[in-house]
């Protein structure tokens, strides 16, 4: 069969059009859709992990123990590539795509009989912090740093609580009332903390359980979510 000169001239044009349209339109579009889709899915997963862990933390699950950390890294957040802490029980490890920071804040009410005129009266204090996962992700790529710190000299590296050297008194109690290093600036914090005691109606300040999740997706970008219980 003879092929006319006109057909000869068009040979390969469809391929060229396909490459051009694909290269400049379809591939970027599909890539964009996939990226956005994955990010949305990951964001939802991170939200759910933060919510679940926060609820468990508030209900007394002790994430300073190896068993519960294994539950977190091996089940709850395993799909997000979180790695265990290794030897660092409560201060986090150095690998993996995710870090979860569990913080317990306490409002020291001036009317609290255990406080009296204690140094932390009227302040929100960080009384416990546990980091699970890659601590190097915290506060990077525009994600906020966790509020407050417990200086290493006061940190019980087994439980994550603030403690003093006075063994004759309940350590965490002593620390939360007297150790000014663990005070948290309320201006940098949600008003929920200072409102709790009044609303709860008691003299003892309220406790808030705060979980922050830092996750880097396949593009290396940060997803940050938090949950307050």
């Amino acid at each position, binding site marked *: 069969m003879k092929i*006319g000169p006109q057909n000869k001239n068009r040979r390969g044009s469809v391929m060229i059009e396909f490459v051009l349209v694909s290269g400049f339109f379809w591939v970027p579009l599909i890539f964009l859709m996939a990226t956005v889709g994955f990010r949305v899915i990951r964001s939802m997963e991170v*939200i759910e992990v933060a919510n679940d862990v926060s609820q468990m933390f508030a209900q007394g699950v002790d994430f300073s123990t190896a068993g519960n950390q294994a539950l977190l890294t091996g089940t709850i957040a395993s799909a997000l590539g979180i790695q265990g802490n290794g030897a660092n029980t409560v201060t986090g490890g150095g690998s993996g795509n995710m870090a979860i920071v569990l913080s317990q804040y306490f409002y020291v009410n001036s009317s609290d009989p255990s406080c009296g005129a204690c140094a932390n009266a009227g302040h929100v204090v960080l009384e416990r912090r546990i980091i699970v996962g890659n601590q190097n992700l915290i506060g990077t790529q525009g994600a906020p740093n966790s509020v407050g710190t417990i200086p290493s000299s006061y940190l019980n590296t087994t439980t994550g609580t603030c403690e003093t050297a006075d063994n004759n008194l309940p350590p965490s109690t002593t620390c939360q009332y007297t150790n000014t290093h663990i005070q948290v600036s309320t201006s940098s914090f949600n008003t929920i903390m200072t409102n709790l005691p009044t*609303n709860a109606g008691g003299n003892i300040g309220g406790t808030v359980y705060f979980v922050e999740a830092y996750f880097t997706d396949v593009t290396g970008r940060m997803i940050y979510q938090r*949950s307050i219980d």
Partner: protein
Amino acid sequence: MRLPRYGRDKGFAVIMTTLSLFATMLIAGLGFDIATIYLIRTKLQGAADAAASAAVRALAENGNVTAAQTVGTEFLTANFPTNYFGAQALASMPVSSALTVSTVDQNGNAGTAGTTATAKIVNVSVGVSAPLYFLRVLGQNLANVYASAQAKREGLLIMMVLDGSGSMQNLIGGTPACTYARNDAEAFLGNSQFDPDIDRIGVVTFSGEAYTVAPVANFQSPAGTVNTSSTVYTAINGFQCNGNTNTTDALQAAYTAIQNFYGVGVSPNRASIVILMTDGAPNGFSADWLSYIKSGSNCGAAASNSKMTGFIARETPTEWGIFSSAAATSSNMQNTDTSSVPLIADNNNCKMNTDVTSYYKDFSQVPSTDHWGDQMTGGSTYKPTTSLLFSGDNPGQAVDEQQFLQLSSNAADGRATAMRTDSLLRITIYTIELDGNSNGNIYDYADPTLLQRMANATTSPIYNPAQPVGAYFDAQDATYLGAEFSAVASDISARLSK
């Protein structure tokens, strides 16, 4: 003129590309908008859950409904930031009214506060309008997203079991420990963590015998202050101390009171809790002695009356005997140990006027189980002992005081275990050890290990997470009792909020 083939197709690719572009954008836009909605919904659901939990926690700390709603609302807004992905609260569902608290009965229907109500339910219902970006081409600018959550503040049934043994009369700073216990127990009733609408308390006091001085009842006014006219308050206000420490009968009395409140075999509609405050080791138990009476013994008259269920106890430093037990069956021997009845009575000549070693004159042995079926001897008991006591007429083989305490402790340990392992009631036990009341006797010291075992505290050597987990508290002396009662209340409150 007939067009060439390719001439007819000219422009076809442009049309197809345009159409597919439109379809693809529509699908992509739909996907993006749906993903956004899901993202908002996930965040909103987490916020609703947190709000419900926080409101229940506030209810557990203080029964004030308005305060709980405020706290819950704060957690809702804290967990769902304003304008999250452009979402706005629905005008028809303002955040300020997202939380409601209802009082329900055991069937989940509306309950009457103070009578039929057994729990408070926090319902969170929240809705936001999520903006749509691509679906606007179809005329849809917004999509409503809803979330709801529910949490419950369970009612409490608390039995306070107060040790009124003689050592509680010891003075701390000039004031009897008994007075501290009475005042602190009264103060406990006024704790803000309790909810007068749904919580109930009963009281058992005990020494050699146990008395349910106040059956389970209301104890606070509707405003949440102590109701000084309540039977509970009146009973505690009349608390007196004298006699032995029959912890087992006391626990059984509390157990019976709880069963009576619900009805035997009826599923409980509240969290069942026993709070045991004691300053000494158990040194009394109830048992069925009839089969072990020696012929011709001093107890013969009692045996002929078939009234041989009672507690073996030391009533004074020199007088031991088997006495009736208020918690035992109706065929008890005569009542001996109330504030209005002389402490020591001769139970049908079945009282030993010398010391514990005189038991062998009347009984061949101690039963291996107490009246309630608790194992007192054998290798599986808390303090293993194989001696059944009173082994013949040789005083040297008779029970000594240490063995007597072991048997009593085993009985108490067994009773607490029976209560915790009641699969229907699932009773949680708190124990408060009161130190500083010793007169130098070995039974004047409470046994912290036993109290931790009874509570199934996490520090107990037989801690079993499958059973209700209580807690053990230690008061250095009577002046610390109030703090320990408060600690118990706080612990209960914390558990309620979980």
